């Protein structure tokens, strides 16, 4: 008898996925754990392994369709009898609360209400079911304009609701959680990177010729961050109720802006890598991020994060920590500024280095010392003035 193969929940905060390419056709024999279908989530693309061996009978969800976790996506005939694992307890509760009547499902679809938003609608029906009345009241509340919005509109300049896509929703959730749970504090230092800029300008062409990848400032920032983390291991940590967990390895996430939203691929064991190694990793990860090709492994397990809004021109940013890490280093734009050197005024390339940190884990002094270590590294780049 055919058994339903359901979309697994691919991560703690991953509620849905888009079905990508089917790797098997109906009628195909499938070994257990053999890749069955590609799944695209807000974070990554993964190949879903067959839960058991047998034959693919029918594909229930075509390519390109986005569906919630738990939705049957295919029918498979087992080679040997299978027993379906009992669903996790939390899941069944979730499913119960989200059992929608056809009308409520239709209204939600018509008004662009996501499953996530539906979960927040209080249900007054039997067993907490969301009734028509509940949904209409929610729509009414959602529509109630603030006083500012009631100002007379002109022509086409009306408010427009853009429904949340999975990426935006995940970003929103992570950041809200971080702000909610982590008492953020900030420290900021100024670095004179004139020598670094000169070095970069002079050596980048040769670097690219020799190694085949493009040198970026971000690679220098990462190298400097590694030095900071080496000196102050408590910055490479995470808060737990049992104590401060010092992370043994240094995996640095790098925020990458893509068309699909913010991605944070992770450079593994950054402290074991040379500048060239880091440049290579970065080049590969950024390219994969922009192509939407990141795997789950490539975005997981970061112990510290670097964000570089300087590329957009920001000169002073206050980032939100990538939960549950202890801190995030922010590197702002390099700008030429008049600064006092000795008794005179010089035109130098200056940038801000900022650290947002979990004040539960360490205090401002450590934060500033860490930043100063990073600053030293950046300022000590071999001057190539000749």
């Amino acid at each position: 008898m055919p058994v339903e193969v359901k979309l697994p929940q691919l991560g703690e905060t991953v509620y849905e996925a888009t079905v990508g390419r089917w790797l098997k056709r109906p009628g195909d024999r499938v070994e257990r754990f053999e890749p069955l279908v590609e799944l695209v989530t807000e974070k990554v693309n993964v190949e879903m392994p067959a839960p058991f061996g047998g034959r693919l009978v029918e594909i229930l969800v075509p390519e390109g369709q986005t569906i919630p976790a738990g939705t049957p996506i295919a029918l498979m005939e087992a080679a040997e009898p299978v027993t379906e694992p009992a669903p996790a307890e939390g899941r069944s509760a979730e499913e119960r609360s989200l059992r929608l009547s056809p009308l409520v499902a239709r209204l939600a679809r018509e008004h662009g209400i996501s499953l996530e938003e539906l979960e927040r609608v209080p249900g007054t029906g039997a067993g907490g079911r969301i009734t028509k009345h509940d949904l209409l009241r929610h729509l009414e509340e959602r529509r109630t304009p603030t006083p500012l919005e009631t100002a007379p509109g002109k022509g086409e300049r009306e408010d427009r609701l853009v429904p949340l896509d999975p990426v935006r929703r995940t970003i929103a959730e992570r950041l809200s959680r971080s702000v909610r749970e982590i008492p953020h504090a900030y420290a900021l230092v100024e670095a004179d990177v004139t020598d670094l800029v000169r070095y970069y300008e002079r050596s980048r062409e040769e670097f690219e010729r020799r190694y085949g990848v493009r040198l970026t400032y971000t690679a220098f920032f990462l190298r400097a961050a590694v030095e900071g983390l080496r000196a102050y291991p408590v910055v490479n940590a995470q808060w737990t109720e049992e104590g401060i967990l010092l992370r043994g390895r240094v995996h640095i996430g790098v925020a990458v802006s893509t068309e699909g939203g913010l991605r944070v691929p992770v450079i593994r064991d950054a402290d074991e890598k040379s500048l060239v190694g880091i440049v290579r990793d970065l080049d590969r990860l950024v390219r994969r991020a922009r192509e939407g090709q990141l795997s789950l492994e490539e975005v997981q397990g970061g112990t510290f994060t670097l964000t570089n809004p300087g590329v957009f021109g920001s000169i002073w940013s206050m980032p939100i920590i990538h939960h549950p890490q202890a801190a995030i280093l922010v590197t702002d734009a390099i700008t030429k500024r008049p600064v006092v050197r000795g008794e005179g005024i010089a035109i130098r390339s200056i940038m801000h280095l900022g650290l947002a940190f979990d004040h539960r884990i360490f205090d401002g002094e450590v934060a500033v010392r860490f930043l100063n270590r990073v600053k030293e590294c950046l300022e000590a780049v071999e001057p190539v003035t000749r």
Partner: protein
Amino acid sequence: MPELRYLDALNRAHHEEMARDERVVVLGEDVGAKGGVFGVTAGLLDRFGEERVIDTPLAESAIVGCAIGMAVNGLRPIAEIQFADFLHPAFDQIVSEAARMRYRSNGAFGCPLVIRVPYGGAHGTALYHSQCVEAFYAHVPGLKVVVPSTPYDAKGMLKAAVRDPDPVLFLEHKRLYRTVRGEVPEEDYEVPIGPAVVRRPGRHLSVFTYGWMLHETLRAAEMVRPEGIEVEVVELRTLRPLDKVTVLRSVAKTNKALVVYEDNRFCGYGAEIAALIAEEAFEDLDGPVMRLGGPDVPAVPFARSLEEAWMPDADRIAQAIRRLARY
């Protein structure tokens, strides 16, 4: 406008139609000298004579068979079957002959026949005088099946049935005869076969019903009104052809549907309404389509207490309404 009992309204319709059209004849058991077992045909024999008002033997198959012959040969017979329970011997005549006449003759013959049938459970009428037969006949293409529930509709629909070019099964719930009164115009009018009617508008849920259950449902709707439940009551009136538009429009408005019928729940006529709603109004539904029908026992029991336990009533309908409203 005079207020008439249901049976008086039917009697008026007979008199008026027989006076209007001399092709109209009445036949059945005790319809002449006695004026019908319930008095619906009272006065017809004296006024129109025994050529047109014919007392027949106790032979339902013969009554309907003769009526079919009359209809095919140009008359407009109204056949009265004393109780729906005795309609079964005529099943073959109705289903295999009357209903198929137009189809079988490729449109050459119609069968303009009205079969009037008192049906349903009344006080103490027990096994042989209480059956609901609508589901058997509503199943048959070529037949029209109507169930008027008010004196106004009784007169208007009987006229429409007499004037219809095809066979009409005209079901009269026995409890309606002497208990329901209403204004009935003295002039000629028709209530067309087909359209259902919203008897009571409401916004929380719709109840679809017909026959005596309409009156129980209206009482139930009144019972739950103080609880803040506004029930829309839709009377189907014509079971075949069904007015789908009115049914679906009401579901689109209230988003919940309960079907109430007196017949055994299983395979009863209400199942068709439930299926229609499930198929064509699925995305309008904010709750399961529910049915309240009679229990699946072979017949209405004779003992008063058991009859009451058997018969769906306003209390039970109100309970079902509350359950659906809460969903």
